[in-house]
């Protein structure tokens, strides 16, 4: 996983809980990476999971809740860094439809060694968008948190998020997010 994600996790902890908690979590984490994480680096997924697991332990929350909270923070942190992705779309539905084809596509050009998830989408009716998440990393709780964050960014167009159980199709695991928009 890219260093950017590691740094954002660390920033999230520092900003929300302060340096003391942050260093407590880092001291408990048994990381394969000995050097500090930097933005353009690429690090083992296990290190990210380890950090999140230890954060959940210290903060006495579940790992799922930790991923959810970080997901929402992630989108808030992306907005000032990459306003171009948000400015292009007035409606969260259009923004989310662009994740695979535009946003992550651009990310792939900007960074090397990425392994990005896929978000296939379809629209059963005008107010509904179904995003089918697939990734070897199985981080659907993070995806859910990110969707919460998107809702936060696009407050003027509220929507509900329903998450399916993981299911298998063509030997791959998917999780469907059904989003229903009020307008």
């Amino acid at each position, binding site marked *: 996983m890219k260093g950017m994600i590691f740094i954002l996790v660390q920033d999230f902890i520092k900003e929300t809980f302060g340096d*003391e908690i942050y*260093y407590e979590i880092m001291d408990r984490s048994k990381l394969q990476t000995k*050097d*500090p994480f*930097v933005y*353009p*680096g690429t690090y083992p997924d296990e290190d990210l999971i380890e950090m999140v697991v230890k954060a959940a332990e210290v903060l006495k929350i579940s790992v799922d809740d930790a991923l959810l909270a970080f997901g929402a923070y992630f989108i808030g942190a992306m907005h000032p860094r990459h306003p171009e992705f948000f400015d292009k779309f007035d409606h969260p539905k259009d923004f989310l439809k662009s994740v695979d084809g535009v946003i992550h596509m651009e990310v792939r050009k900007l960074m090397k060694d990425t392994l990005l998830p896929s978000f296939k989408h379809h629209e059963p009716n005008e107010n509904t968008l179904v995003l089918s998440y697939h990734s070897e990393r199985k981080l659907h709780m993070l995806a859910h948190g990110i969707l919460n964050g998107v809702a936060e960014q696009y407050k003027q167009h509220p929507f509900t998020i329903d998450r399916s159980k993981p299911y298998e199709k063509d030997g791959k695991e998917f999780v469907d997010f059904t989003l229903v928009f009020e307008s």
Partner: protein
Amino acid sequence: MLTETNTKLLQRRLDDAERKIRVLEDMIENSSRELYIANQDLKHKNKDLEQIIYVVSHDLQEPLTTLYAFLGRLAEKHHQELSSQGQEYLDYANISAERMKALIKGLLDHSRIGAKRIVETIDFNQVVKDVMLDLDSIIQESKVKITIENLPKLQAYSIESRLLFQNLIHNAIKFAKPGHIPIIRIGAEEMQTHVSFYVEDEGIGIEEDHHEKVFKIFQQLSRKPGGVGIGLAHCKKIALMHEGDLWIDNTYTEGCRFCFTFSKGL
């Protein structure tokens, strides 16, 4: 007041930052090395390509000359024996040979651009005046109005600079609106590291979809007689060899405005 814990935390933050800087410095160094190697590789590949273009176009000339000679003899000595259809075929063969000759010349010219690199101080007012002399007959014929505004003196490649202006001015005349007297405005603006030139006309313009395509070799938008569609590819190459670029201004709607930049640091 700084408590002991606070001081410790601050110290840790500082250590982290220092270690990060070191990691980032290493990364920058590695990336620079990779970039340098990739750049060298590209330069070699570019050289190879130029060489191929040169060799191919050069070697194609010889059989073409033979073809010409025999077509000529056929027309001269056996004209009577040919049916009218046979003569028509011969005309077609001649036209194709002509076109092939023009294409090969275009390629050869293209590969020669930048082969001899001699930088001189050039007065671009003079360059445009020279080009206008070269194009005198077309200028007289078309009655084109050309205005030139404060062109600079600059270190540049003189033959190529002339070729660039010649192509752009010639194009502007060629693609004037039918029935209108062509109008061309040429000017320049000095920027920090580059000089930015423009050549604009009030002609038929180029659709935005084609703004990139026109700079590729043998891309012709219309079959105007006398061209094979390589002039703008020459121009692009010339701008690039001046460490600048050439493009069509898509905010200009009166016709076509070509903008190009030349580095001031050649």
